[in-house]
C-alpha cells in the first residue's frame, strides 16, 4: 500500500477505485511491507491487510507468503502497485497463476524497456524526444562535464529510484555518492528540462490499444515535489505519444506516461511507470475508473473505451488520522496480518 502521508504509493488509491467500480463488490486485501503502513489499517478501503516480505528475501519466501494469503483470503486477482515488486511478480507469473490468482501485467521484456537507461528507445516508440541521458560510474565526470557539453543544472538519477537537481560539481558529487550508495552504479545524469510536467494513466490491452486514458497536470506540490493536487487536461500530443507507445510495444496492463511540455511547445518523455500512479483515484472522479477497465480486461471483456477523460476535474489529496487498537498492531507485527477483519472495534481495557 505504501500509504505514507508525504509520499504515498498508489495502493490506497487503487483500493479506493476498486470500491467504486460497478463490477466488483468483493473483498480487498491490502498488501504492505511495514506494520505501520496506514493502508493495512483502513477497513473502509481494505477488508484485510497482510505484510509481504521485501523482494530481497527471495522468490520462494514471496511465493510462500502469497500462497498463505491465497489460502486464508481466497484472493482471485493480484494488482502490484510498486515498481520494486513488479520484477518478482512478472518473473513468478506462472506460479502465481497456477495458484488461481489472475494478473494483468506487462511482460518482463516490456518492464526492461522502461528502465531509465533505455529512455531514448522508449521515447522513439512514443514518437517524441527524450532528455539527453548518460550513465556515469565515476564522480570525476562532474568536474569535467561542462567541457563535454553537459552544463549545470543537471539531474542525477538512480537506476531505479531517486533523483536530485544539482547546480554545481560539489552538489553533483554529493548526490552521486548518496544515490550510488543506495541504488548502485551507474548513476544516470540527465539534462535538466524546463517546462511543465503532464502525465497520463490508462490500461493497455496487450493488442496495441490504450483504454480509459486520463491526463493530469499537477496543480500543487509538496516540499518533496510530490503532487497534492492535480487537474485533468486534454493534451492531444501526450495522448498520441502514449497511444503510439502502447501500440508499438504491445504494452499490457496499467501504465503511467510522464512527459515534460517545454516552453517552446516541444514534448520530452521523462518516464514510463508500469503500474497505476498514486493519483489514480482521479480516474474514478473523471468517470474513467482505471480499475473498472482493468477488472473487465481480466474478465476477458472486449472494451471500447479509448476516448480520454474530460478536462477540468480536480483532485486534492489530504492526510487523515486513523485510530489503531494495540491488538491490531500486535497482530500485524506478530502474525503479519490484520485482525479483526471487521471495521475497527473498541480496544479492550
Amino acid at each position: 500500500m505504501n500509504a505514507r502521508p508525504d509520499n504515498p504509493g498508489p495502493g490506497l488509491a487503487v483500493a479506493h477505485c476498486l470500491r467504486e467500480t460497478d463490477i466488483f463488490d468483493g473483498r480487498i486485501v491490502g498488501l504492505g511491507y511495514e506494520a505501520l503502513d496506514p493502508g493495512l489499517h483502513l477497513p473502509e478501503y481494505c477488508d484485510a491487510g497482510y505484510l509481504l516480505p521485501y523482494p530481497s528475501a527471495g522468490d520462494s519466501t514471496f511465493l510462500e507468503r502469497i500462497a498463505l494469503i491465497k489460502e486464508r483470503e481466497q484472493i482471485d486477482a493480484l494488482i502490484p502497485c510498486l515498481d520494486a515488486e513488479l520484477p518478482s511478480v512478472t518473473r513468478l507469473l506462472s506460479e502465481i497463476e497456477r495458484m488461481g490468482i489472475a494478473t494483468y501485467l506487462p511482460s518482463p521484456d516490456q518492464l526492461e524497456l522502461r528502465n531509465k537507461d533505455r529512455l531514448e528507445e522508449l521515447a522513439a516508440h512514443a514518437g517524441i524526444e527524450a532528455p539527453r541521458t548518460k550513465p556515469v560510474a565515476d564522480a570525476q565526470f562532474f568536474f569535467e562535464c561542462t567541457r563535454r557539453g553537459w552544463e549545470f543544472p543537471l539531474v542525477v538519477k538512480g537506476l531505479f529510484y531517486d533523483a536530485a537537481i544539482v547546480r554545481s560539481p560539489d552538489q553533483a558529487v554529493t548526490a552521486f555518492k548518496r544515490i550510488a550508495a543506495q541504488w548502485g552504479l551507474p548513476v544516470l545524469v540527465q539534462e535538466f528540462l524546463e517546462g511543465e510536467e503532464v502525465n497520463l494513466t490508462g490500461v493497455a490491452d496487450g493488442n496495441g490499444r490504450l483504454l480509459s486514458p486520463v491526463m493530469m497536470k499537477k496543480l500543487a506540490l509538496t516540499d518533496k515535489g510530490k503532487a497534492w493536487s492535480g487537474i485533468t487536461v486534454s493534451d492531444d500530443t501526450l495522448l498520441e505519444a502514449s497511444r503510439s507507445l502502447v501500440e508499438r510495444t504491445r504494452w499490457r496492463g496499467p501504465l503511467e506516461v510522464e512527459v515534460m511540455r517545454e516552453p517552446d511547445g516541444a514534448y520530452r518523455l521523462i518516464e514510463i511507470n508500469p503500474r497505476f500512479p498514486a493519483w489514480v483515484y482521479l480516474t474514478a472522479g473523471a468517470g474513467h475508473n482505471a480499475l473498472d477497465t482493468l477488472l473487465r480486461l481480466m474478465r476477458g471483456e472486449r472494451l471500447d473505451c479509448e476516448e480520454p477523460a474530460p478536462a477540468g476535474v480536480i483532485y486534492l489529496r489530504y492526510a487523515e488520522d486513523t485510530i489503531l487498537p494495540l491488538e491490531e498492531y500486535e497482530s500485524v507485527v506478530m502474525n503479519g496480518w490484520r485482525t479483526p477483519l471487521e471495521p475497527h472495534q473498541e480496544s479492550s481495557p
Partner: protein
Amino acid sequence: MSELQFSEESLLPDAATLERLALSSSGFLFDPVSGHSFTLNETGRDILKILQETRDLKALKQQLSDEYDLDSSTLDRDLLEFLGSVRDQLRRP
C-alpha cells in the same frame, strides 16, 4: 496621435486556442490543454467572449467603444496590453 494598426494574426490567440477555452459567466477561464485557470474581471470576460464568438478585432473595438467612454488611443493601448497578457498566459507552459 495616430490610431494603432492592429493585426489580428499577431495580436490574438489562434482560433483553436480561443475555441477550446472554457469561459464561465463569473469570469473564470480554464484552458483544458494546459490545465491553467485564470480569473478575469468583467471587461476581460466580455473581451474574451466576443473574441470567441467572432475573432474580429474591428467588431471588438467597436463594441468596446460603444460600451466604455474611452478615446480611441486609450482603448487601443489598453486592448494591446490586455491581449498581450492573454497571449503570454496562454502560451505559458
